[in-house]
């Protein structure tokens, strides 16, 4: 669906992005991660046909964003970092305007508006003036304007920006509901959101893609085998000795101990779990739980960005 090759954008002498290359297939939900100033917004603006690249090639459905922007724009819905809202309009009038501007006929516009409002839970504010809406509703309206013409590709730049925890949960559910109907590209600073919403991640650092793949692929690539966690009956001493005695187990650490339960975390290949269980049982340790723990997105992200900075 999206093919990006050698994408570069200079602002004066400063390269905001350099030689980006990635590919996104139809129906995927992609998380775009990066620190402030990494080049996320510039990349999304180029994909949204708002900015033109200095060099490189971007095609969406085989259409070049520079050579054929008019056709590309019909296929995309774009939410910039600040929702582009006309404050004096009502929600319904605004969505109808956007739908028609993006090619929906005047006859079909009301039903498209209704669908977008239902998708983003905005029906109750259909007649409200936009300037009177709360921040949460404004963010949702921003997403709704990107969906109202039913585009194949939806690009959302920080859709959770400024939302409180309850609104974030709501927004997550709303975006998850879009899965399947659209290809979605989301940028966010909230790593847990990306982790829970997206199929695959693109990590950008100082204008370059430093990693891409699923969360577990990235964890494997960076951290080898990931962690195994066991809950055992306290005291943990016997379990710690038994684990340290196993040759393929490393970095054994007591995570917590209390209420008669000790949690131990260590690094070991996942297929070692039966051997570990047998070793603990042989050492007379009572096991409550043994589980594989993937490295969390936050630590993957920090590792990647630190590695690049170094």
């Amino acid at each position, binding site marked *: 669906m999206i093919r990006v090759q050698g994408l570069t954008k200079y602002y004066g002498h400063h390269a905001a992005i350099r030689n980006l290359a990635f590919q996104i297939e139809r129906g995927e939900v992609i998380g775009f991660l990066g620190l402030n100033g990494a080049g996320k917004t510039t990349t999304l603006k180029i994909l949204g046909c*708002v900015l033109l690249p200095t060099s490189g090639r971007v095609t969406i459905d085989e259409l070049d964003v520079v050579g054929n922007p008019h056709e590309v724009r019909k296929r995309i819905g774009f939410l910039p970092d600040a929702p582009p809202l006309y404050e004096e309009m009502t929600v319904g009038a605004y969505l109808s305007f956007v739908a028609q*501007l*993006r090619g929906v006929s005047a006859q079909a516009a009301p039903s498209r508006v209704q669908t977008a409002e239902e998708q983003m839970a905005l029906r109750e504010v259909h007649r409200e003036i936009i300037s009177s809406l709360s921040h949460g509703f404004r963010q949702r309206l921003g997403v709704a304007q990107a969906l109202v013409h039913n585009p194949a590709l939806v690009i959302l730049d920080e859709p959770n920006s400024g939302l409180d925890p309850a609104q974030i949960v709501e927004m997550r559910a709303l975006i998850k509901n879009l899965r399947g109907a659209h290809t979605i590209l989301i940028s966010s600073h909230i790593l847990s959101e990306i982790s829970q919403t997206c199929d695959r991640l693109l990590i950008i650092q100082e204008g370059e893609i430093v990693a891409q793949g699923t969360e577990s692929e990235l964890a494997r690539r960076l951290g080898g085998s990931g962690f195994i966690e066991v809950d055992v009956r306290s005291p943990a001493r016997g379990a710690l000795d038994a684990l340290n005695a196993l040759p393929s187990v490393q970095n054994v650490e007591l995570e917590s101990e209390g209420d008669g339960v000790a949690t131990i975390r260590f690094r070991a290949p996942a297929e070692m779990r039966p051997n570990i269980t047998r070793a603990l049982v042989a050492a007379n340790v009572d096991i409550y739980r043994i589980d594989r723990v993937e490295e969390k997105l936050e630590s993957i992200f920090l590792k990647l960005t630190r590695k690049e900075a170094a």
Partner: protein
Amino acid sequence: MRSVVLIARRELAGYFSTLSGYVIIAAVLAVDALMFNAIGLAGNKRSAEVLNQFFFLSSGMTITAAVFISMRLLAEERQSGTISLLYSSPVRDGEIVLGKFFSALVFLLVLIALTAFMPALILVNGKVSLGHIAAGYLGLVLLGSASLAIGTFGSALSRSQILAVIISGCMVVALLTCWMLAHVTERPLSEVFTAMALHNQHFQPFQAGLVHLRDVVYYLAVTYVALFAATRVLEARRWR
């Protein structure tokens, strides 16, 4: 063309749903009527002279109103970030500019139409031809159109509406004062400045009830060039 109508309709509704539109209309009508009363109706004049004076005074107000009406057109879109919505929609930059311009032109037409009570008073109480009134109003519309187009260009150059007014005002004043330069320069330069002047040579025939093709062409050309320049500014912004 559909996009032009959509953008123009939304923008026009914006003028009437905010206070600024009504403030501009009220201020222009008040100042225009006061000047008409104080200057236009002063002394013993023939009806045609009063009408001539009315169009002269209204032309100044039309230019001023046009600069203020057009200040928000593109500067506000950039200021509020809504330009991203237009840029990411299947709309050409020229259509954005045209839509914005036409909305402002319709608003200005409403404003100009609301001044009609003054020529109507002259018509009722004096003796003037309808042709003179029509020619004068055609001049106001063309002068307003050219001033609005310059204002649209100024608004495209700036993110701030205040700065847009200043830029547009400077361009309009530069074109207005071309006739002064014509006086202090020699031919052929003086002829160029005379031809470029926004008001003097080109508007005076209209206020006297005369329609010359060259004046119509001049105002349409200024409108076209300014709108073309505004479009190029929007296109250039996609590179930055």
